[in-house]
């Protein structure tokens, strides 16, 4: 008899007023009992609507049924068949617009907590099971992967399992991409990411850090070094600024810089870690996506008194995950909606002292289908802040496209690929993840890495036969 409760089994969380002062994980995870109870809410639907919402087709009803039966190890293995990073996806996937949006239990009441159950299975497995890694027999062929974000890591893992010698080239000193430099510790613990990377290394994947492709080596040279195919998973790391006066004042950060200092360089532990970050008392974060929420919640944790999210549309249009918006509010982040910055004001020493904003009203829908914000005349006002963090988006870094001949990109700088194979305009070069789509999601980047691994295998086999 299924559990017919309309609500998900709640996930234990750190108290908002405690957690907004520390960087430990917010959501604490289900116990075995909670997981079984929640798993029993699944109706094991024959037509599996939930699966159609998952970009990598996790076999959702099967793994949930296994959890309900207490078969946690098997549940994990079921997820792992199609998703190589379940502990990460269970935490950061926008489930509410993917798998859980399609769940029939969501028609009346809350959907099954698919993400939380996925996380539970992965955490349980990590805690209880250590299996020796079985390295596949090597086939003697080399593939290069550029970038160690979810796209690159997934592609590398799949190819290693097929027997390829894979080398991942990463510009930073540490592998993980946005998972380590962008998404904060309190949402995605870094030791968890490190475990996934260690697991890849155990499969035989070599990770070479401090290798900036386009500078240290370029794509042509990778082929000269004997790599038979190249996968580009370099993400979309170039920060956009607003182009308003005052953006170069002291105290104005791109979200990338602010989050990189905190996450990758561990500036929240300064001076134990050597890299500092400016700890503002009153902080404005411009933008309404996950990146903006992460920056705002990080600023609060660094000790700010007031942190504002300044967003030019209304809450309904905010691209951030619902859960993150909810968490941010609980932690005391103040939302200034329908508000747009016009300039940043500095004091006599060139530090930020305020941000001038105008109020907006929503007009006709624009190209994105969302109602276009238009400024209300005479509504200028000043928000008194000492720090401004700009989180209005990123685009792919031009380093690779400007140093690789024959690589077609579109006007946004994204690499153009064949959707089915991730093949670029250049023979032997494949690409996926944010470098192709612009900023998207972890699971889409993983899905692309998987697709590319398969296509690369086919490409190399076909080449060997001809």
């Amino acid at each position, binding site marked *: 008899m299924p559990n017919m409760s309309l609500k998900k089994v709640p996930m234990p969380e750190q108290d908002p007023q405690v957690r907004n002062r520390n960087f430990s994980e917010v959501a604490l995870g289900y116990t075995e009992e909670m997981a079984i109870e929640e798993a029993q809410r699944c109706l094991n639907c024959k037509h599996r609507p939930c699966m159609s919402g998952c970009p990598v087709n996790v076999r959702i009803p099967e793994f949930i049924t296994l959890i309900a039966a207490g078969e946690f190890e098997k549940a994990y293995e079921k997820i792992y068949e199609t998703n190589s990073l379940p502990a990460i996806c269970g935490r950061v996937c926008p489930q509410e617009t993917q798998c859980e949006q399609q769940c029939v239990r969501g028609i009346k009441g809350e959907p099954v907590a698919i993400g939380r159950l996925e996380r539970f299975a992965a955490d349980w497995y990590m805690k209880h099971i250590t299996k020796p890694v079985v390295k596949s027999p090597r086939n003697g062929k080399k593939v290069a992967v550029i970038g160690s974000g979810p796209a690159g890591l997934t592609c590398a893992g799949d190819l290693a399992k097929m027997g390829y010698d894979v080398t991942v080239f990463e*510009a*930073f*000193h540490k592998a993980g991409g946005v998972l380590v430099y962008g998404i904060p510790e309190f949402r995605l613990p870094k030791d968890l990411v490190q475990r996934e990377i260690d697991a890849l290394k155990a499969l035989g994947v070599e990770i070479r*850090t*401090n*290798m*900036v492709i386009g*500078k*240290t*080596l370029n794509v042509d040279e990778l082929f000269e070094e004997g790599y038979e195919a190249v996968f580009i998973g370099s993400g979309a*790391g*170039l*920060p956009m*600024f607003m182009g308003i006066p005052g*953006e*170069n004042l*002291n*105290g104005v*950060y*791109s979200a*990338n*810089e602010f989050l*990189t*200092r905190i996450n990758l*360089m*561990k500036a929240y532990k*300064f*001076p*134990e*870690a*050597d*890299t*500092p970050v*400016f700890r503002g008392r009153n902080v404005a974060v411009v933008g309404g996506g996950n990146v903006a929420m992460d920056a705002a919640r990080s600023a609060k944790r660094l000790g700010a008194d007031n942190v504002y999210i300044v967003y030019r549309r209304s809450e309904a249009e905010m691209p951030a995950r619902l859960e993150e918006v909810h968490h941010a509010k609980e932690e005391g982040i103040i939302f200034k909606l329908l508000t747009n910055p016009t300039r940043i004001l500095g004091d006599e*020493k*060139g530090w930020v002292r305020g941000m001038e904003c105008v109020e907006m009203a929503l007009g006709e829908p624009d190209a994105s289908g969302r109602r276009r914000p238009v400024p209300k005349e005479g509504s200028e006002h000043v928000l008194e802040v000492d720090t401004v963090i700009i989180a209005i988006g990123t685009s792919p*870094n*031009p*380093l690779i496209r400007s140093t690789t001949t024959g690589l077609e990109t579109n006007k946004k700088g994204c690499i153009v690929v064949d959707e089915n194979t991730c093949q670029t305009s250049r023979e032997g070069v494949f690409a996926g993840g944010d470098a192709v789509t612009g900023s998207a999601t972890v699971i889409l980047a993983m899905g692309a890495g998987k697709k590319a691994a398969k296509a690369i295998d086919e490409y190399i086999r076909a080449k060997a036969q001809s």
Partner: protein
Amino acid sequence: MYRILRKEILNPQVKLLEIEAPYVARKAEPGQFIILRVHDEGERIPLTIADYDREKGSVTIIFQEVGATTRLLGSLEAGDAIADFCGPLGVASHFEGVKKAAVIGGGLGTAIAYPQAKKLFGLGVEVDVIIGFRNKDLIILEQEMAKVSNRLFVTTDDGSNGTRGFVSDILKQRIEEGAQYDVVIAIGPPIMMKVVCDVTRPYGIKTIVSLNPVMIDGTGMCGGCRVTVGGETKFACVDGPDFDGHLVDFDELIRRLSIYREDERISLERHACRLGGVLNA
């Protein structure tokens, strides 16, 4: 890990390390830089590629001990290794069509200017090198610079080496004497570069400066290194570090360099405790 092959002490605060980094050495060009971390909790700091040896696979850096990271780096010896060494980053300097050049180094900027002088001299350009220091004990790379220049002028703020004055004074004098420079390359503290640009501006002599804003990644992903050049925002790590000095907003650069002054002091004190003897030596 990247091994230190050789260490030289150029003056009490300025040290030279030759580091094994074959991939960086293969591509390095004058004007480019690297980013390193000494250890695993360390800060990423940018340093100019002072020299490289493609065959040996080594890159030389010359740095001044100004804070925690550079002091720690200076405490290492040949045989030790550092955690990370990434590069070459930034755009290489271009000298097409240059026949006569003045290369100016202010203090430690001399180290950053050295590879540029060497490259120009190697291309057959007539090179005047003008280097300046606070006093004679701080003079570095005098012999090296002599080898890559047609004329070398060494000056000190206090006149303790026999020549008193700023590099900009000597440059002005040279220009007034009729030296026809196609280009002036000025590298040193921002204020020195600013003054040199003020000297060359009325003569319309193209002046290249090398900017040193705070950097993290060095690949264009953070924007922390942004500088204003000709009214436009540029990322010094990927668009530079060399820029047309007549277009640079030096006041903004100087201001942005002060962002972490207080943190730098805290960090240095902390390291001073940890390093104790090394630093007091």
